[in-house]
């Protein structure tokens, strides 16, 4: 992939069931994710997805696009900007910002983001990967 190319995106529905499964898998039972009463009194007024659950779509996208080099050399720098709510279908997408070859090694940097159905960017950041 070259500079300016779009990455193959990942789309995922973030259901409440998925959030509760993630709470168990990640051991994160923060009531803002799983307790409707608690969350109704929060700044957001309702339950929100774990940031790491939503961020996982970016890592999946990088694995899909770059394969095993992502597992060995992937770097992510993410800012979690806006919540994702149960029922939202989010899309992780990205674009190659730079692709450089140095002594047989290819360094790729991508701008990445996760977008909510209303168009708001939930997560933004940069991903880099090095491949032989």
């Amino acid at each position, binding site marked *: 992939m070259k500079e300016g190319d779009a990455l193959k995106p990942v789309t995922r529905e973030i259901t409440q069931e998925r959030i509760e499964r993630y709470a168990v898998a990640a051991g994160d039972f923060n009531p803002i994710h799983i307790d409707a009463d608690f969350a109704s009194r929060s700044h957001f007024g309702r339950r929100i997805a774990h940031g790491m659950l939503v*961020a996982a779509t970016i890592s*999946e996208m990088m694995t*899909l696009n770059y394969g095993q080099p992502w*597992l060995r*050399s*992937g*770097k*992510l720098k*993410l800012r979690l900007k806006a919540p994702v709510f149960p029922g939202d279908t989010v899309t992780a997408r990205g674009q190659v910002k730079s692709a450089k070859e140095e002594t047989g090694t290819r360094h790729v940097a991508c701008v990445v983001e996760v977008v909510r159905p209303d168009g708001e960017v939930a997560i933004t950041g940069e991903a880099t990967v090095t491949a032989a």
Partner: protein
Amino acid sequence: MPVDYANLKPGQVVSQQACVLDAATVARYVEAVGDQTAAGPVLDAGGGARYVPAMTVAAISVRGVVNDLQIPGGTLHLGQEVEFTDAVKVGETLTCRATLAQNSVRGGQRILVVILAVEAGGSRTVMTGKSTIMVPP
């Protein structure tokens, strides 16, 4: 004993945990996030072995922080950095260490920055990272 967040000092190790990324643990994670690459050839490690999706390692490392710091309800995750340095196979044992890098109060909200380091097999660094969280007052 409850954690006194105001007294946490930069440099302090706030969590150190070991866990086995066994097949059941990985399956629970994959099912939760819905990672479509997990069953595909991209995570084939050869010889019948499988690699775990990279973010499994990050999620497990953050779990130690959540548990050992007794993160209170309403805490928000503001930022996350990760650097994967080696692939992890299903069945490997991870040691996750979290060290406080910053503890500050902004606008009445406490911001904690935690440095993450994950080793597999006791000596092979597989991930480093940084989590920024906002703890309610």
